């Protein structure tokens, strides 16, 4: 079964037709990168996958998005339940004004989990999975704001992992970070795909090539090309894709 299966997706911001007939399938444990110039629709598409666009007035979607076979836009779907399955990491690290430990435990607590041992085990495991453990193990009770930007972003990833999502969405997760922190996030993505299916929006084409198995190129709301990353970056089918990845346009 496909982990993500978007079929004939059209999306509108009022009259503006932001996504045009997008069909995109993602297998389990794959990393998919969405690339394209600003305004091409890649972030809009990403946000459709955990219904973040629902929060914007005047938007409208047609088509369907299935996550592990379940239509996430079907009547009766609870968005809070969906977001447990489809976690999201944003461009700018957004830790809560709480301790490192409590940041990661937060998602578990709001989901009604109160078993202290379970929470502790899951927090430690998530921080380890986010490749942050060695750096924070001695200061779990310190404020998350004391961490560097790169560490904060990995903490946000740990927070997302704590609730055991099936899919992790990342919207330019390294764009606010220095090169070393960026490299750590990229290595982390490579490691995480063993356990999760990941979709990442990035403006950095080299990042897309380094971390992803498949790449989708969006332009003016259309998905121009979707293929294995190695194919996209060595011999794309479409001239438009080639022009974009070689920096000739966009």
């Amino acid at each position, binding site marked *: 079964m496909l982990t993500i299966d978007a079929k004939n997706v059209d999306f509108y911001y009022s009259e503006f037709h932001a996504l045009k007939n997008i069909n995109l399938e993602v297998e389990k444990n794959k990393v998919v990168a969405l690339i394209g110039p600003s305004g091409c629709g890649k972030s809009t598409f990403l946000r459709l996958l955990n219904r973040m666009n629902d929060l914007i007035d005047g938007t409208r979607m047609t088509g369907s998005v299935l996550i592990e076979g379940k239509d996430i836009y079907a009547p009766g779907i609870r968005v809070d339940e969906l977001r447990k399955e489809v976690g999201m990491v944003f461009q700018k690290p957004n830790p809560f004004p709480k301790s490192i430990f409590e940041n990661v435990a937060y998602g578990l607590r709001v989901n009604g989990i109160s078993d202290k041992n379970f929470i502790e085990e899951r927090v430690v495991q998530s921080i380890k999975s986010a490749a942050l453990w060695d750096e924070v193990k001695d200061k779990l009770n310190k404020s998350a704001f004391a961490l560097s930007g790169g560490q904060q972003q990995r903490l946000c990833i740990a927070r997302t992992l704590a609730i055991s999502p099936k899919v992790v969405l990342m919207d330019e997760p390294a764009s606010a970070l220095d090169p070393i922190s960026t*490299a750590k996030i*990229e*290595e982390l993505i*490579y490691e995480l795909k063993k356990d999760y299916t990941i979709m990442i929006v990035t403006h950095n084409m*080299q990042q897309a*090539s*380094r971390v992803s198995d498949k790449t989708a190129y969006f332009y003016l709301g259309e998905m121009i090309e979707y293929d294995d*990353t*190695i194919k996209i*970056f*060595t011999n794309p089918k479409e001239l438009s894709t080639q022009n974009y990845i070689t920096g000739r346009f966009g």
Partner: protein
Amino acid sequence: MRHLEQEINSLRQDIIEMWRMTISQVYNAGEAILSFDKDLAMQVSMRERKIDAFELKIDSECENIIALHQPVAIDLRLVLAVLKINSNLERIADFAYGISRILLANPSLILDAELITDSKLNSMIQQVNKMLAQGLEAFETEKPQIAAAIFSEDYQVDEINANVSRKIAEYIKKNPERAYECLQLMGVFRKLERIGDHCSNIAEEIFFFTDAKILKHTDKKL
């Protein structure tokens, strides 16, 4: 381990495998011609396609690493060096195949033992086998000083080759009825000499990889 490191390690293992296959091809082709062993020549001939396929695999790995990982510094030099070493190894294996074909295309070929000794065919074969092994050792251990020895050995190979024409010409004058087999033998020497040249090219690439030194078109004084 970083993703790129995994890819680089895998590439290293593959080029080492290509090297070992090529060494085996040259060794067997040499043994086949020295002992007129047609079965061994056939074995060399049969393995040629496997080497060609492996060359393509390594080329593709290099292309992928450059396209997906944008290697820099020593990683970039390794990938560029492997690309060229790969191409040189494939040419060397082609020459081994060519030697085996000489034997297979002339099943009744008999080379005069005295001429073989006099022309130093055995020494030439041993020399190129040694150069190939030294190249692999230099690459695996990242010790360019081992590769440096290849340059002087290539001069020795060139010297044997330079003397062969005269020796064979003299032999033909005395034994004109054996001119055809002498021409075949010349062909073997030419191929061995080219193998030596490719070993020298590989040694240059090892210096490029380890020390970022460009020795191409220089007198190789290190």
